[in-house]
């Protein structure tokens, strides 16, 4: 197995006096998909938000590309390399195209390159026809695809998805699964939380269960990188 991109060791987090995460370790490898399961309120979302740099842990040791970093130093790499997608994606006011292009303005691409990237990304996700539609008027499934595309265009090394298929019909789920398989094939490390592991058959490499603030490996499934 190749070297992990990020290693999070001993993550601890409490809300008030309630300890949500106790010494949780997480290793993120390129082109691997982790499925996280657990009851509502078990801390799955909190764990993903800590890994995404959106919540500060009480304690955590972070390694990036083999180097041990403090939280303050790691946060820069985390925000650059890891993208978190909410259970219900938040699309900004404006068109699908402007949403997809949002993160590109913080890259080194010039205007022309950004435009080309957006066109390519919209084609990749089959959203070209919807490019000029107001993003927040779309159905839940299509909004999730816009959110995937907005993340994919930035080529993050790690993608964190919180219950990505909870509000989708069968067709939207299949489309989303196909996009995720393509992302994984492109080398992205993917972490998904879900109550329904079957949605991700063929995509998941390892499954963890979060209970009482601790992470336990619950099942291995065959990797399917053919897509």
């Amino acid at each position, binding site marked *: 197995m190749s070297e992990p991109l990020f290693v999070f060791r001993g993550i601890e987090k409490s809300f008030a006096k309630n300890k949500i995460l106790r010494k949780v370790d997480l290793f993120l490898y390129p082109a691997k998909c982790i499925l996280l399961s657990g009851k509502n309120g078990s801390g799955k979302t909190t764990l993903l*938000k800590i890994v*995404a*740099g*959106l919540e500060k842990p009480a304690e955590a040791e972070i390694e990036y590309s083999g180097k041990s970093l403090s939280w303050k130093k790691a946060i820069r790499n985390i*925000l*650059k390399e*890891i*993208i*978190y997608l*909410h259970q219900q*994606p*938040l699309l*900004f*006011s404006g068109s699908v195209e402007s949403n997809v292009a*949002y*993160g590109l303005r*913080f*890259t080194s691409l010039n205007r022309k390159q950004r435009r080309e990237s957006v066109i390519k990304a919209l084609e990749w996700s089959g959203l070209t026809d919807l490019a000029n539609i107001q993003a927040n008027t779309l159905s839940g499934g299509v909004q999730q695809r816009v959110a995937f595309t*907005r*993340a994919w265009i*930035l080529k993050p090394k790690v993608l964190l998805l919180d219950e990505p298929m909870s509000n989708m019909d069968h067709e939207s789920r299949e489309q989303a699964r196909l996009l995720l398989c393509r992302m994984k094939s492109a080398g992205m490390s993917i972490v998904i939380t879900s109550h329904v592991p079957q949605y991700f058959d063929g995509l998941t490499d390892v499954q963890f269960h979060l209970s009482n603030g601790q992470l336990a490996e619950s099942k291995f499934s065959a990797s399917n990188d053919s897509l």
Partner: protein
Amino acid sequence: MNGLLLTTQQALQLLLSGDAELWSIVLLSFSVSLKAILLTTPLALLVAFALNHVNFPGRRIILAFFNSLLSVPTVVIGLFLYVLLTRQGPFGNLRLLFTQSAIVIGQMILCFPVLVALGYAAIQASDRRVWETARTLGAPTWFSILTVFYEVRFGLLAAVLTGFGRIISEVGISMMVGGNIMGYTRNITTAIALETSKGEFAQGIALGMVLLSLAFLLTAFLSYIQGKKEFTT
């Protein structure tokens, strides 16, 4: 009744004839209050944002303090500023008393808590995911703040318009630290007070009409914004 009708007719004539004195007072009012609102808005909205998004001890107390300042009488702010700016006061050497700058400062103090409290309410109504999405997509802190502001722009605009309405219609500060000097610090409200005390009701009513029209316009615009906000959410 006839007297009131006659005075209103004279007031309308003054307004429509483009009376130079009257319109210079209107212009001065707008100029001073626009400066005050433009100078206050950026800092007040940043404070509102920080109160929403940054966890620090005393946050609730600061918010309660700004909320309590919403009902402070304008003459109290005028008095407070007068004491500071008078020759014997700590800032007397700046020679700001009875200047437009003094009115601007007073109006800034008046509208700051309005903008913070209403800005806070607007930002609080926004979705926390806006900030998180902007950050995770690589936006730097300043751009993420602008993104949040853009997503709640109608609420923030309503806060700014309310603040502007509050300062352009205040009289206490303008009277106490402006001094009501013709052509220099006399604005709509101080002119109304003066003309009424002299028994010159026509100009007072004409200026009152300008203020009332502004109030109606602001209310209509706020309703329009409210409608737009409901439509887009």
